[in-house]
């Protein structure tokens, strides 16, 4: 299909609408947008905002899948709309909603306070007993040590994983996939010594043990971070640590 042939076509967008100053309940509004082969859902929303309805509200910025702003539910699945092509959803209609599991500020704009708080709670920074002065140069870290946590450092905080997680949907206290993966990222970093400081929260009921390993967080992750994997690894560590605590000595390689 050439793009000239498709230029005249349109596709229907069913967009979630909610305005906190006047709506008691959300509703859906249908719009016809031009169909273009290379357009993503975000392009269609931007076209609507520019040309048709300036009241449409959503977040976006980089339009190249790295800033994490434009996550929405597209036909029921959490997606980055800058990376969800209209052509995937033909013939339409395409239903666009705010990410599931979050309060809605307006239209597709969700309230992120809970997530931002959790991000801080897991202490996502290098913790050391003794800081090495900058003049003494970098901490050594081999490519293999880097590989231990690299994957978990790729999270763009887009929160698609929270929207995919039925546990978070039902239990707001759950720290959730991205924040737990971030904690694991620092725990696995050879430069970090903060494992114990993070444990109290990570190993609590709101932490890893709330996870029932549905695994959808990893399935929807646009950056292949695999938060489900991070959480299961932490569970294994916590379990090992629990049993080892009964031993009268620390086995070699088990202490930190």
């Amino acid at each position, binding site marked *: 299909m050439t793009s000239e042939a498709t230029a005249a076509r349109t596709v229907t967008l069913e967009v979630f609408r909610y305005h906190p100053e006047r709506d008691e309940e959300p509703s859906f509004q249908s719009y016809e947008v031009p169909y273009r082969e290379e357009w993503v859902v975000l392009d269609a929303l931007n076209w609507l905002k520019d040309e048709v309805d300036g009241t449409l509200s959503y977040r976006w910025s980089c339009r190249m899948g790295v800033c994490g702003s434009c996550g929405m539910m597209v036909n029921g699945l959490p997606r980055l709309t800058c990376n969800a092509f209209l052509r995937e959803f033909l013939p339409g209609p395409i239903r666009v909603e705010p990410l*599931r599991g979050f*309060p809605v500020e*307006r239209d597709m704009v969700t309230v992120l306070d809970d997530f931002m708080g959790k991000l801080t709670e897991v202490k996502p920074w290098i913790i050391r007993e003794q800081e090495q002065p900058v003049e003494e140069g970098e901490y050594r870290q081999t490519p293999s040590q880097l590989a231990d946590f690299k994957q978990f450092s790729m999270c763009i905080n887009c929160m698609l994983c929270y929207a995919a997680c039925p546990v978070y949907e039902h239990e707001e206290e759950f720290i959730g996939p991205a924040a737990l993966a971030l904690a694991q990222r620092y725990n696995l970093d050879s430069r970090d010594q903060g494992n114990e400081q993070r444990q109290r929260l990570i190993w609590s009921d709101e932490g890893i043990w709330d996870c029932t390993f*549905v*695994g959808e967080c990893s399935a929807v992750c646009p950056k292949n971070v695999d938060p*489900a*994997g991070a959480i299961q690894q932490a569970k294994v560590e916590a379990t090992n640590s629990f049993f080892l605590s009964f031993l009268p000595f620390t086995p070699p390689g088990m202490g930190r």
Partner: protein
Amino acid sequence: MPGPLPRRKSNAWWNRGWPYRIILLRELSAVAVAGYMVLLLLLVCNVRGGEGAFADHLEVLQSPLLWLVHAIILGFAQLHTTTWFRLVPKAMPLKLGGRRVPDELIVAGAFGGWLAVSAVVLVIFLVVA
């Protein structure tokens, strides 16, 4: 002013697609395993009841209903094992010589181990039988 729309939850989350349904089935497999335990306990009781009771037990086991029950239990056990083995590399990534072992290899190893153990069980069964 109504303000932000509160979080909404749905109890139909498990029906949002196959991945979620399979999770629910995997959780349900615990019920199947518990059911099999009941069958085993009955077997033990009947063995204790002497040769007659044991023969009765065997006869009951021949009934189509119990064949069906066993088939269902076996199905759930398979589901649990396969889904679990697929997840092993997530929980226990392996490194050899500084490089991470590919996930597929770990999964294959798990399935290989399973086959080996099954083979050993089969051999023992054949020898004893």
